[in-house]
């Protein structure tokens, strides 16, 4: 097989690539020559994130560390494993912890939660390293200032995604970590009960900012971490924040291209 010079005895891959089905899906055929290699980038919606040609420094791992791409990839891993986990997990105080136990003990080959959790940690790390690389190559400089700001938003969103997910196993680690984190919201100036100036927002004796009407309450839907907080964090973790982060990701990738592609010496 695979003797390309002999027309009568083509390789199986070649035969497949000449079928009508293959041609209907992949317009370009197997990218062998220069023209096909350019067309394959243009004709595929996913590959089309990339330009067709790049200066050589831009593909060197030495320069990019692959960290931006890996952050996106780990995000996709998190999406897939997250969807699988949603099959098993119910966000109520009654079921949440038991569902996690079931996930560990009843589901065959159950490492989805592990992959999800470690990917979440990994994504925080890759995003930080991506930011560090971008800083060290001075890639935030004009004309890429705005995209750096989008990147900062994405970094914050990544940590918020991880933070909201931290509560869902509903174990001691989860609720107390979130208690520590959400107590901060209660100290927000003006709008948190234990924040400075909260007593200024009052009409006579009626205080507007109380422990059941402040920033912390809005965040966790109660005065302590309970049923409402679990549901809120679940919805934010699975729907709300992914929705927002995807919008910013679209802008981020779009702007990489529109701001002149990957940075390089001018």
């Amino acid at each position, binding site marked *: 097989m695979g003797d390309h010079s002999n027309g009568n005895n083509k390789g199986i891959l070649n035969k497949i690539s000449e079928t009508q089905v293959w041609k209907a899906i992949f317009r370009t055929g197997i990218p062998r020559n220069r023209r096909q290699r350019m067309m394959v*980038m243009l004709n595929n919606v996913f590959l089309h994130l990339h330009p067709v040609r790049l200066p050589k420094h831009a593909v060197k791992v030495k320069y990019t560390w692959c960290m931006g791409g*890996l952050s996106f990839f780990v995000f996709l891993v998190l999406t897939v494993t997250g969807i699988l986990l949603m099959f098993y997990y119910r966000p109520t105080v009654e079921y949440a912890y038991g569902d996690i136990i079931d996930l560990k003990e009843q589901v065959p080959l159950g490492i989805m939660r592990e992959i999800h959790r470690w990917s979440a940690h990994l994504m925080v790390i890759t995003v930080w390293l991506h930011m560090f690389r971008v800083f*060290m190559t*001075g890639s935030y400089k004009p004309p890429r200032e705005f995209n750096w700001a989008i990147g900062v938003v994405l970094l914050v969103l990544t*940590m918020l995604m991880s933070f909201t997910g931290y509560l869902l196993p509903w174990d*001691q680690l989860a609720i107390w*970590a979130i208690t520590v984190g959400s107590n901060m919201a209660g100290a927000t100036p003006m709008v948190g009960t234990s*924040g400075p100036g909260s007593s200024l927002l009052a009409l006579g004796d009626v205080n507007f900012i109380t422990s059941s009407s402040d920033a912390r309450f809005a965040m966790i839907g109660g005065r302590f971490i309970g049923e409402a907080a679990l549901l809120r964090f679940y919805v934010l973790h699975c729907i709300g924040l992914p929705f927002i982060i995807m919008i910013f990701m679209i802008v981020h990738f779009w702007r990489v291209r529109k701001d002149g592609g990957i940075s390089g010496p001018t």
Partner: protein
Amino acid sequence: METIKHFINTVCRPQIIFPVILAVFFFIFPPTERLLAANKKLGLYKLWTQKGGIALFCGLILAFVFGLTDPNFTKIVTKPDNVPIVGLIFLIVFFVWFSMKQAWENDARIAQGGKPKEADDAKEKILVWPDLVYIEFIALILCTVLLILWSILLKAPLEEPANPTVSPNPSKAPWYFLGLQEMLVYFDPWIAGVLFPTVIIIGMMAIPYLDTNKKGGGYYSFAQRKTAVSIFMFYWLVLWLFLITVGTFLRGPNWNFFGPFEPWDIHKLEALTNINLSDLVYMTWLKQRLPQNIFLREIGGFLVLLFYFGALPLVLAKTWFKELYARLGPVRYSIFIVLLLLSVSLPIKMFLRWVFNIKYIIAIPEFFFNI
């Protein structure tokens, strides 16, 4: 052995290690010409060579291996949720070295009138299919393999079911927020948990507008943008990653400090001798009772703050930051100096705490307004 461990425990105390880092840091990442000259004289730039990297890495691994002989160190380092931070420490050391190595190499090329390495590479154009696509493909496979191995070898942690009536001691936020939690030692939650995160986000977004240096875009370099790199490294390595490391590994029950080889003793007592600036002014210096009037009581703190944020920027603009002011102009300079002073307030507050036991500069607990 015990003596060495005891020595390390002592040295790791924030009161000792932080000043040491502060003293060494600006020689390793010099922000000015003078410090750069000192760096060269001391030969510190040799860290960013092949040999330096090997030494750095061997040192780090040896320290870890030595640490793992101790049960207390092993216990805290191998906690499932702490494993990523151990990995992070190695990755950070590697990538700081890796970027600085390329930066110094480029600096040498530029100093000889050449162009950075990236400029040589950039002359050649390549096709994304296959030259980039296959690199990405390999990176994805390696990443997947890493995640699967990691997931098989290390189970995700699951503790007792949530119980709102039993709080673990210490209660820690997720590790990436432990830098903020560590700041809680020195500032109230409204500053450490609300103001500082906001300022950090705004400050990071402001970087491209405050760094007006046109050089050094699109390639690794240090000499051309040493001030920017030095400041960034300080925030990133010292005020963020170092504080996270301290918060994760060296803070135990009651958020007390514990050395890496010290068991987490729940009954460890730390003497609380902290006083407010107003106590210091009225009771220690003037030997009288605190005034009833809040404003009068805290006047000292207000004056300090007024000087710090009101007068100091002007004084600095006329002296130390004269050139910087000329380069940035009034608007950029104002934003820069406010961000700088806010962030420098953390080390200042640390030293005030350690040296003078000062808790608050302004203490108005009546309105939860403590600084």
